[in-house]
């Protein structure tokens, strides 16, 4: 565990849960999905991150301070979410700490929810969700559920660090990436990602309200999208559009 980052537990943490990650990224897919899950499943804050590495930000809810990086949960699910855009250099220590913490709690699987930007998103009627995994066994689980595999390419951001670190530790992990807008909040993509999450894990979340409130969410999420966009530029997120040159 990174000594500069502490995870403070507020409630008893269940053993053997599935740990999910919803971090600011393209289309804010992960954050929108996480926020919807919290309200639909009535997840409670079970832990939060405390670190001097984090920007000097608190999030006020009902006048009380909260860490921008928190973990919500119930008996089956732990959901790590950030309410602020994270600088690229923080992603390694934050993800490693969360994964180490989850590992200590006997988490059985880690799944990151995010997006994959597509240029013709505006014209897409049906959004696809792709998966990448930490091991061939996890890839097979996704394939058996009918999810298309992201075979070749680059991945940039928290989900990239998660897959690599979980692969090193031998932890089962999956990243679900819904086709989305790069720079605009995309509730439809978040809904698609949640549908596939239910397909893989059995954790069902009704997405009808998410789709009904799509415009409201897009308006509300503008500021966070703008900040995230700035960080994605610094992180060279557009590298995900690149065609890799594999050295075998």
């Amino acid at each position, binding site marked *: 565990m990174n000594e500069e980052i502490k995870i403070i537990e507020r409630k008893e943490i269940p053993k053997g849960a599935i740990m999910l990650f919803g971090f600011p990224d393209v289309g804010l897919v992960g954050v929108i999905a996480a926020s919807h899950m919290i309200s639909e499943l009535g997840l409670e804050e079970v832990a939060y991150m405390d670190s001097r590495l984090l920007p000097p930000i608190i999030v006020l809810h009902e006048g009380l301070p909260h860490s921008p990086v928190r973990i919500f949960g119930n008996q089956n699910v732990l959901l790590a979410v950030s309410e602020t855009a994270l600088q690229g250099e923080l992603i390694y220590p934050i993800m490693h700490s969360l994964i180490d913490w989850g590992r200590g709690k006997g988490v059985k699987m880690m799944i990151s929810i995010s997006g994959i930007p597509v240029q013709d998103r*505006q*014209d897409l009627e049906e959004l696809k969700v792709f998966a990448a995994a930490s091991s061939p066994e996890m890839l097979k689980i996704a394939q058996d559920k009918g999810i298309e595999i992201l075979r070749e390419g680059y991945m940039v951001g928290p989900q990239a660090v998660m897959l690599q670190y979980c692969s090193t530790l031998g932890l089962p992990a999956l990243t679900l990436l819904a086709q989305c*807008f*790069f*720079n*605009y*909040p995309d509730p439809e993509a978040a809904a698609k990602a949640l549908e596939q999450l239910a397909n893989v894990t059995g954790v069902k979340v009704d997405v009808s309200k998410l789709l009904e409130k*799509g*415009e*409201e969410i*897009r*308006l*509300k999420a*503008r*500021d966070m*999208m*703008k900040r995230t966009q*700035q960080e994605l*530029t*610094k992180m060279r997120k557009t590298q995900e559009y690149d065609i890799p040159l594999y050295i075998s």
Partner: protein
Amino acid sequence: MAEESSKRRRSIFDLIDEYFENLEAWAERVRETIMERPSWNCRTCTVEPLRDIMVTSNEVIVTVDLPYAEQNTIQVKPVSSDTIEISAKMRRKVSFDDFGITHYRGEFQRFHCQTRIPVPVYMDRMEIRFKRGILEIRLPRKHEYEIPIE
């Protein structure tokens, strides 16, 4: 040997690389400074929409995210040879209260922004469409001169 190489003069390519790196860093700082302002304007009761610009070989594509926009109120006007102004009325009024914010007061019912087009374009040949709440503006590029290849 190592000392010799460290004393070696940097090539013109190193200097050019360094110049562009510095320029990029400066542009980034300027961009951040410009972007550091609220996206709401209480005096004009307007909201600044998210937008994006893509320059291709033959056109510039500007997209603008306009949730709640009434399609028949969308206006795109060239205000100079390199700037367009976009505005649209929302179907409903939105206030800070709607988002649980009680320490600011204000209601908004309009999107408004100005966007600079980074390369010369034909403003009079602009094409506009609105789909899924996203406004798309296509502007053909002006290629004012071409360098002949011998």
